[in-house]
């Protein structure tokens, strides 16, 4: 579809905003306790957020990500502690003041009556219009600019209820942009979106933060996306903040595993992908592969529930990363080394235990020439299957 075409970014949005002021912490959560009806669900929240930073809140369902966001947007009363905007206490600001600094994209599904997308975006001008809310020429321009920034310029005249979820989310983001805030708060913005719209949305967020200095605070379901888009990750779990910091520091396999209580599968912290658990049982199948050729075969076997041994793979091969998650046994060699006797013997021994040896595609060169020997041996034993 045409709207997947590369957007005209980076765009200059609202260049009248002063971006030169570098404030190390723009938004500060200080000993914050949040919850419902005066009861703290999460306490001791201490997070410093700089201008133009993207902060992602991750954590299991029901952990309280939304509760934190709703407290920052003042939909919920803060139970204890403070939220400071540029040093100013949130609870002492008027809703009006706050509205010109902070905009929101919420999970509430909107079903407005007879409103075009332009109308929806234009509501973002609310803090700036007069008593009766009539848009000036300048306001109209800001609306158009915001819609163009999220690639929704063509949606203006369409009824909001008639567009797709992905388009709706972009229109709501344009609405938030149009409010010219310093901070945009998003609650699960990717929930109803397919993968393409997720990528669109996140790249828009990224350029908003980097090009326009808008601070973005969002909750995200997808830890892999959080890792790729955020500057800071806040892990919410139990009744407190489990961990908070740069994505590199957060994404260790064990941490994600613990936080989400993953017992059934694994999480690749390098790529942020999740895998189902390896098939259980004594392996009677061996897969020989190099250069990522084995991946498809590993997944096929995993789905069939057949335990397997992953054949001689180098530790810098993509096959190796996945084999660690899915194979019962991995026979591996150090990168760029010829296959040693020890590893070769190990492979032969493993082959002996197997009924089938699958050749999933092997690129053979001078240093891994012995893979060819293994294949020949499998052929001789009558166990070889090619895929």
């Amino acid at each position: 579809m045409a709207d997947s075409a590369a957007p005209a970014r980076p765009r200059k949005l609202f260049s009248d905003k002063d971006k030169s002021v570098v404030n190390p912490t723009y938004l500060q959560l200080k000993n914050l306790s949040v919850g419902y009806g005066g009861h703290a669900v999460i306490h001791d929240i201490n997070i410093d957020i700089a201008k133009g930073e993207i902060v992602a809140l991750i954590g299991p369902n029901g952990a309280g990500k939304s509760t934190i966001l709703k407290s920052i947007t003042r939909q919920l009363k803060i139970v204890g502690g403070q939220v400071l905007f540029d040093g100013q206490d949130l609870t002492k600001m008027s809703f009006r003041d706050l509205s010109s600094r902070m905009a929101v994209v919420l999970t509430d599904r909107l079903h407005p009556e007879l409103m075009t997308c332009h109308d929806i975006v234009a509501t973002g001008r609310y803090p700036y219009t007069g008593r009766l809310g009539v848009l000036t020429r300048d306001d109209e321009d800001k609306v158009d600019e915001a819609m163009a920034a999220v690639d929704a310029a063509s949606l203006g005249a369409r009824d909001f209820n008639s567009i797709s979820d992905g388009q709706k989310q972009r229109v709501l983001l344009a609405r938030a942009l149009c409010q010219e805030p310093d901070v945009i708060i998003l609650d699960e913005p990717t929930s109803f979106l397919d993968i393409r719209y997720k990528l669109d949305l996140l790249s828009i967020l990224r350029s908003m933060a980097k090009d326009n200095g808008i601070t973005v605070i969002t909750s995200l379901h997808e830890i892999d996306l959080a890792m790729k888009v955020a500057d800071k990750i806040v892990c919410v779990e139990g009744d407190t903040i489990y961990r908070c910091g740069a994505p590199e520091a957060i994404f260790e396999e064990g941490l994600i595993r613990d936080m989400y209580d993953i017992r059934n599968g694994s999480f690749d912290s390098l790529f942020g992908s999740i895998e189902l658990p390896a098939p259980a049982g004594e392996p009677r199948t061996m897969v020989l592969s190099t250069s990522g050729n084995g991946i498809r075969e590993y997944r096929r076997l995993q789905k069939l529930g057949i335990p397997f041994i992953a054949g001689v793979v180098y530790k810098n091969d993509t096959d190796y990363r996945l084999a660690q998650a899915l194979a019962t046994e991995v026979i591996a060699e150090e990168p760029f080394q010829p296959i040693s006797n020890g590893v070769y013997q190990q492979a032969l021994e493993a082959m002996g235990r197997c009924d089938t040896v699958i050749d999933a595609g092997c690129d053979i060169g001078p240093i891994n020439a012995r893979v060819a020997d293994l294949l020949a041996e499998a052929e001789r034993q009558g166990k070889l299957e090619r895929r």
Partner: protein
Amino acid sequence: MAKREQQLAEEEASGETALSSYHHEAFKRRTRYLVVFIGLIAAFFAMAVINIRSGDMNVSGSEIWNILIGKVTSGSTYDVIHKIRLPRILMAAILGGALSVSGFLLQTFFDNPIAGPFVLGISDGARMVVAIVMVLSISAVGFAPSWALVIAAFAGSLLATGFILLISRRVHNMAILLVAGLMVGYICKAATDFILTFAADNDIVNLRNWTLGSFSGNSWENVVAAAVLVGVAMLFTILLSKPIGAYQLGESYAQSMGVNIKSFRVILILLSSILSGTVTAFAGPISFVGIAVPFLIKRALGTSKPLVVIPATFLGGTAFCMMCDLIARLAFAPTELNISTVTAVFGAPVVIFMMLMRRTGRY
């Protein structure tokens, strides 16, 4: 589906033209608003003219004109036009508009297009308190001043609305809210009947007539009182159209735009209660106008922008109630119909149509 996507793709590919086509769209919209407003004003005058000319007594156009501009100030035609027809027409106009706008405010408040003062039992609540005040004040001082009835109606509206609010806090289901409204209405109706049963005979004639709903029998004093109340409430409502527009996106969004939700909600309910209370005080409960008129007006305008919809709804309600009153007077003359009988005939099908549209998801 594929065709639609292709169409979308084409539209999006031509982003620049689509953008300018939006501004073309804005122009089209403004023209549409203008046409609707001219139509409504024309309907208002047409209804006023037809209304003032029809009735048992045939009065010529020039005679009416002379009475209106104050040249003729006595005689039987003067009495018919000045004391009977004119107050009635004005009452139908003012109260019809007030009722429709009150419906629009309640629909905004409850985020439910089928909400309205009659359906939610608010009119019945007002009627109950008015009946109590009427019976008490007639038995105490021999008459019931209109200001007391207005205050009673306002209090009754607030009482019923408060009750509905309590329920809506607990359940967020639209259908249940409406059922609750119906039940509130029945309870208030029963209480009213109870009061009437024990009221003195000569009060009852007066009360019975009023409890069924009618624009007739209002003095000029009442017309002025209604005009002032409705006028002031309308002014505030129009001034409130900006936050109402924000509220249409839901409470959370409205708050994020800087609306103080708590005070906004209170003001909205007060305004809607003043409007519907005034109607009930002077004309009794009138069905369906509060739902049907805002719905039809929004369709006609093709928008729900409060700044446009509120005045148009007022005008629409004005013309609609004048038409219904005309039918109530003339359809089976000399027998007069209740105004609610006529408004229901026109209004109920609109509500059914609305619900069907909701079902099929087109709404």
